[in-house]
């Protein structure tokens, strides 16, 4: 059962922002409701105003944009899974969308809702980090952009101001020849750990690498030292160095103990899964498909 609230269905970002500014903590944005309705039902959040942003024109748009891929805040996971622009620019993202939660959540849950709710046990922010994602925030006062890594501040905590709404996330597609993978592990409904890797190639060498780890700590993060270590190696040698890189990444994350496990366990699993994800990405970069299988693991 839900406590009573008023439902606002603004037609513009400015109207939505106005209700947010007026009602402050008594208001909440709402799109798919897959997160916010749960905490309202549980009584963890109480609001008098729910602001349904799905009628704002253009907010669900997914488009190739100036070399980038722009995903509107109210695009559902299902829409991302199917969008030709996603398949063309960032196919890994389409694959990840196909494995978010379950079919019911994917049908109504939105990309913007997922990012703005900032549940640590989530896939999208982690995979978006290896696409150097930038979120667009809008209010009555105007628009601003923020790197996703700065937007997500902690568990359920973002840099969104009270009168702002997230309108889109912009991804930078990888250069031609790059390969990547997303691997998630967990025995619960939500993932216990997610690792995203991108390997950029310069011939047979690794010109650059991006490694992101999510779910183990309050927010997903890039593993800069691991990325740095990867640069310049021959792709063929990656298997030899994967242990060392994985250990670096495990040292960089800030795991916390929760129902998914202790922080020590998560640090060790980070090491295990960064290694596995690197090997999948390396195999793809070499034009081979990987047939790796691991328990309770989804390889995208």
């Amino acid at each position: 059962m839900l406590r009573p609230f008023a439902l606002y269905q603004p037609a513009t970002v400015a109207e939505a922002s106005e209700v947010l500014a007026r009602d402050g903590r008594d208001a909440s944005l709402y799109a798919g409701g897959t997160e916010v309705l749960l905490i309202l039902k549980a009584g963890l959040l109480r609001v008098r105003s729910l602001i349904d942003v799905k009628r704002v024109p253009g907010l669900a748009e997914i488009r190739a944009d100036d070399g980038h891929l722009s995903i509107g805040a109210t695009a559902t996971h299902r829409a991302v899974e199917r969008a030709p622009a996603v398949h063309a620019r960032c196919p890994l993202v389409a694959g990840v969308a196909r494995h978010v939660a379950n079919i019911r959540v994917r049908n109504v849950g939105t990309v913007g809702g997922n990012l703005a709710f900032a549940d640590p046990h989530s896939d999208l922010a982690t995979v978006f980090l290896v696409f150097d994602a930038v979120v667009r925030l809008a209010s009555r006062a105007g628009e601003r952009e923020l790197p996703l890594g700065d937007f997500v501040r902690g568990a359920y905590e973002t840099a969104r101001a009270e009168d702002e709404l997230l309108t889109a996330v912009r991804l930078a597609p990888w250069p031609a020849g790059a390969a990547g993978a997303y691997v998630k592990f967990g025995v619960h409904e939500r993932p216990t750990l997610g690792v995203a890797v991108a390997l950029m190639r310069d011939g047979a060498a690794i010109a650059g690498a991006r490694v992101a780890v999510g779910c183990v700590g309050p927010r997903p993060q890039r593993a800069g030292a691991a990325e740095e270590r990867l640069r310049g190696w021959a792709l063929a040698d990656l298997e030899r160095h994967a242990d060392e890189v994985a250990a670096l990444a495990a040292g960089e994350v800030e795991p916390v103990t929760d129902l998914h496990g202790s922080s020590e366990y998560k640090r060790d699993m980070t090491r295990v899964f960064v290694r596995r994800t690197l090997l999948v990405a390396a195999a793809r970069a070499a034009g081979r498909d990987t047939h790796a299988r691991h328990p309770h693991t989804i390889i995208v």
Partner: protein
Amino acid sequence: MHVIPIRSSCRIRVTVNGRPVELDVRPEALLLDVLRDRLELKGARRSCDVQVCGACTVLLDGAPVSACTFLAVEADGREVLTVEGLATGDRLDPLQEAFMDHGAVQCGFCTAGMLLTARALLAEEPAPSPARVAEYLRGSLCRCTGYRKIVEAILACARPAGVAR
């Protein structure tokens, strides 16, 4: 801006199992409660209440949603299919027949959600692989059958790959 004030109702028009229905609902009314308590359709069940189990699954314009976490006002102008709408008169849907034939029903609590989820899958992909059926059923929990019989029943209704119906 359209607003439904607090503690007031809004008229919605929904097609439920092929039948047009008009209802006054509050903004906070959940689709599951409207179906069960106002329309006396008890096939969708409240179980986990957090979109994990699938017992409350209904099809909204053909797509599975969790009725326990879905505002009734959002069903305005749309088509809702519950398990009660699967059979045609006395004739069961082929999926229902297959579930019986394969022993895919034990306690029955998950069955309505399983059937509707399977219906959506087959509408989308008439010839899914066993692995795809299992993948699509992720988030539809059964605590009796071990899933195998459910997957077999669904595959029995699938079109053989490469064969046009």
